[in-house]
C-alpha cells in the first residue's frame, strides 16, 4: 500500500467521473451528466453539492427557451485539484 495525498472530495467514484466529464468541455448540462453517469437526479445532486461546497464546480441555473437548465462547470480550483489527484494516482501506478 502506498501513502497518498488524496483529495477525498474528488476520489469518490461518481465525483471523479463528474470531474472527468466536466474536464472535457467548458460546461455541461445537468441532464447530460446524469445520462452519462446513469444515476438518479437525487444521487447526482448530492454529489454536486459536495463538489460545489468544496468550490470545485460551479452551478449556473438559466432559463433558455422557457426551459430551466442547470449548467455545470469545473472551477479553476476544481480543475487543479482533479489534475493533481490524477497525477497522484499516476505516481502510485508508477507512470510518473
Amino acid at each position, binding site marked *: 500500500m502506498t501513502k497518498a495525498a488524496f483529495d477525498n472530495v474528488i476520489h469518490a467514484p461518481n465525483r471523479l467521473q463528474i470531474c472527468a466529464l466536466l474536464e472535457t468541455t467548458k460546461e455541461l448540462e445537468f441532464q447530460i451528466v446524469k445520462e452519462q453517469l446513469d444515476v438518479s437526479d437525487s444521487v447526482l445532486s448530492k454529489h454536486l453539492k459536495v463538489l460545489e461546497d468544496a468550490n470545485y464546480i460551479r452551478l449556473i441555473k438559466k432559463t433558455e427557451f422557457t426551459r430551466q437548465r442547470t449548467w455545470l462547470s469545473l472551477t479553476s480550483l476544481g480543475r487543479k485539484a482533479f489534475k493533481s489527484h490524477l497525477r497522484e494516482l499516476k505516481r502510485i*501506478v*508508477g507512470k510518473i
Partner: protein
Amino acid sequence: MNNEKETISKEEAAATLKSVDSTKRDAIQSFRIPLLLITLISLSYSLVVFSWGMTEHDNLWALGMYIGSASFGIFVAFYLYTFRLLGIKVNILPRSKERIKSELVLLLIFAVILILGRQFRVYEGFEYAPHIAALISGVYMVYLLYKYPTGEYLARNQK
C-alpha cells in the same frame, strides 16, 4: 465522509485511472458532431484552401475564398449552437498547456498546407498543388472533427 481513504494500492489506482479515461472516452464518443455538419465544415474549409491556391489578379477565385470563409464561420457557429442546445458548451480556447501545444501544432500544420498549396502552383508550376492541399486539409479536418468533437485530446491506450 464515509468514503475517505488515505491509502490506495497500485491496482486500485490503475483501475481508477482506467475508469476516468473510459468515462472521458465514452463522453467524447457520445458527443459526436452530425456527419453532415462535419462534411459541410470540411468542404467550406477546403474551398478556402483551394481558392487561396488558385487566386490570381485576373480570376474570381478570391470570391471562393470569401464564400468559403463565411460558410466555414456559419457552420462552425451552427456546430457550437447545436452542441449548446444538446447541453454541451465546447471549450473554444485551450485551457491546459497540453492543449495549447497540440492546437499550436495543428495551426502550424494547417498553415503549412495552405501556404504550400499556393507556393507550389505559383513558384513551381505544379498545377494540382491547390487540389491536393484542399483534399489533405478537408480529410484532416473530417478526422479531427470526428475524433475530437470537443477539442479534448486523449492519448491512445491511456490506462
